[in-house]
């Protein structure tokens, strides 16, 4: 199957998936108790009735769904209840940038450092260097990012005064949140690369290369890295999504004007249009990243056959 045909097939699947997600979220969301009004506690039943009428929230749920969908197709995602008069597209557009930048920086730093650590650990396997790398990986995976964030803030920013405490103003203010978030992908990719690399170094072709006079280092960097990094691309999808969605606490600690907290808050406040928009954004990102990873994978590794529903 050609790449174009494969891509088209995947796009159709993505659209269907998106529709299922939107529909399920819409109906589940309306099962939440409460209403989207800021001072719900103080509203009388009469006032609630007036507001629901004004905002069309007492119409049959199916009618609301169809209306939402019709608006969605024209690109209108509605207006936030919490942030008065603010179209949710503006709301998200204004906040997604910082989250994406932070996520991408953390992913790049984390995976690049992870590859280096993984390769070194594999080359020096069963030595103290390898154990050290394992400790880094275990710590990176088990210490929650917010603990690391608070620690980095206290030591690097408050005590040593090397970097800003919080904010999102220039590049220097992005360093600490990036580091705090980069530990998890660093740990994941280091463990992954080490395993793959050990396999490569113990393979027959590595043996042949060694017989041809190449040193372990040369084999590792020339032949090993590529072969062990390709499978890492599989991990990129889930890692990216984790970083984009999981940065909530780190964003709060470093006062990053990202999207993280908005989502949680919109659920707690029953801010329906925002809940929907954030869900669409995140699931759209997830689908796109998975799609991109699959396509990249097939381009990079010619052995991957583009068939069926994609690689398994």
């Amino acid at each position, binding site marked *: 199957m050609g790449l174009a045909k494969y891509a088209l097939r995947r796009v159709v699947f993505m659209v269907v998936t998106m529709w299922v997600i939107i529909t399920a979220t819409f109906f589940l969301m309306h099962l939440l108790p409460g209403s989207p009004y800021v001072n*719900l506690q*103080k509203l009388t039943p009469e006032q609630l009735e007036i507001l629901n009428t004004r905002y069309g929230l007492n119409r049959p749920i199916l009618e609301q769904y169809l209306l939402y969908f019709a608006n969605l197709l024209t690109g209108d995602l509605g207006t936030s209840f919490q*942030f008065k008069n603010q179209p949710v597209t503006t709301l998200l557009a204004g906040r997604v940038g910082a989250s994406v930048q932070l996520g991408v*920086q953390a992913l*790049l730093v984390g995976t690049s450092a992870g590859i280096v650590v993984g390769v070194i650990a594999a080359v020096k396997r069963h030595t103290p260097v390898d154990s050290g790398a394992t400790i880094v990986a275990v710590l990176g995976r088990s210490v929650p990012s917010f603990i690391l964030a608070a620690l980095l803030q206290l030591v690097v920013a408050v005590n040593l005064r090397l970097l800003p405490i919080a904010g999102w103003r220039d590049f220097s203010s992005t360093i600490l949140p990036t580091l705090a978030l980069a530990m998890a992908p660093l740990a994941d990719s280091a463990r992954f690369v080490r395993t793959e690399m050990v396999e490569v170094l113990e393979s027959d072709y590595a043996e042949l290369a060694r017989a041809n006079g190449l040193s372990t280092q040369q084999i590792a960097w020339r032949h090993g890295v590529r072969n062990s990094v390709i499978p890492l691309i599989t991990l990129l999808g889930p890692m990216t999504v984790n970083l984009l969605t999981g940065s909530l606490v780190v964003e709060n600690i470093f*006062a990053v004007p990202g999207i993280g907290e908005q989502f949680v808050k919109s659920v707690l406040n*029953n801010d329906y249009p925002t809940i929907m928009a954030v869900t669409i954004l995140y699931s759209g990102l997830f689908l796109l990243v998975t799609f991109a990873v699959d396509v990249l994978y097939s381009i990079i590794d010619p052995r991957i056959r583009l068939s069926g529903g994609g690689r398994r």
Partner: protein
Amino acid sequence: MKTRRIVQIATILSLPGLLFAGCTTSDPGGTVSSDAPPATVVIALSQELNTIDPTAAIDSNSSSAINQVYEGLYRLDANNSPVPAGAAALPEVSADGLTYTISLNQAAKWSDGTPVKAADYEWAWKRAVGLDSAAENEVYYGFVLNASDIIAGNKPVDELGIKALDDYTLEIKLAAPTTFFASLLASVSFFPLNEAYVTSQGDKFGSDSEHAIYNGPFVLADYAGPGVGTDWKYVKNPTYWDAASVKLDSIEVRVIKETSTAVNLYTSGEVDQVAISGAQVQALRNDPGFTAYTTATAAFLGYNFNIPAFANVKVRQAISLVIDRAALVNNVLNDGSALATGLVPAGLSSDQTRGDFATAAGNPLETDVDKAKTLWAEAKQELGIDKLEIDLQTFDSDRMRTVTQYLQNVIQENLVGTTVTITASPVANFLENTKSGSFGIYLVTWGADYADASSLLDLARSNSGSNWGHYSSPEFDAAFAAAQGADAADSAARFDDLLQAHAILLADQGYTPVYFQSSTLLRNPEFKGVVFHSAGSNTEYKTAYIER
């Protein structure tokens, strides 16, 4: 084959490049210069602003911000008394207390230089009651003639009780006499808007700091919009009529949600004011910058009067008597919360001759475990029970959990046979349960909407929409109705009525007050002159200054 290989390598090499695309960082050269103008302060807020449209604001965070950059007919002084601002003097009130005639301050200007006219008030109010969200602010607009009917869609907007008699005279008609209406006019809901400007902006009005004109002590700058802006400034407004009283050149605001981060910024001298709470208060209450204000928010227990045990006054009195309110705020909470003396916190409302409402009401709430045990024993006999399971509900927060656990302890320990089950749910679930009557007792915090005792006492009115447990006392209703009706235009008689209603409520324990909430913060000791109001737009910087 060879080209394919090149493509593969190029793809691997370009991977980081692709990921980097579109994520340029902001200008790294944009560092803040250290020789900033002297009269500047930086304050940290824990939340973004919901809106900067005065007529759409509901929460106190947005109202406070709006109050720095807009101005209504009056401002409240430190004692919550109205002082003329957009008005030239206090209102002339008709004998029946229903018609207010107000001359405007002719020096008041919009930031584009045009004068603030009576028509700006009339237009803004009529726009406000026509908004989809109007019912959320009915608590304010409801005082104006026909507003409630307009909000409910039963009357046209034109019939709202406000009229510009000429450019600088405003006539307001009320739905009922309201002695504190002048101080209500300091609420952002009653602020003016410039019709020509707002209509010219359409949907863009208030979408960021550039799409608005202001008439307050400061103007808003560098604000990206509701929910989007996380840094902004209040810059001294040169066209403000009282600009001579404004001492700060600018106030920089940063949204910092994590309190520990905000405290780090404060201790390192980067911000001059941060709000703190809970454990941070315990750790920082000896800091020279520690400041605590009593807010107009009371925490209290509400009872389900459809359950026979809670309809029994002795049960409610016994519960109130086992609560050691001083120990609760000083030892259990220890976070700056204040001792509850009733339902109305000190500093909320006062009478010219009688002084503060809370002071006049005294503190009838006592702790007496022996008396409680006697009452409980009698109640058990009257009810024919020897056990009582209490379903105590609250919303999910650290403080609410601490308080309900304390209550569980003292009730179970002293009132033999009681079992208290605590349910702390998310706010929406909590409200669903309480409003539908599925609870035994609830613990809630309730803030006054305006500076009058009636704002809180209204909870106990038999047919109040907020009386979730259906407490009903003819005596309370009579006293409260007198305050809102027969004595509404006579502030001294009204004050007495409300005091009487409050006393009836406490004797009855229709609600059981538990503590008063405080606003606790760290403020640079050199940053002075900030005025705090316990209700509505909390913090005013008009007269704030830096002492060197």
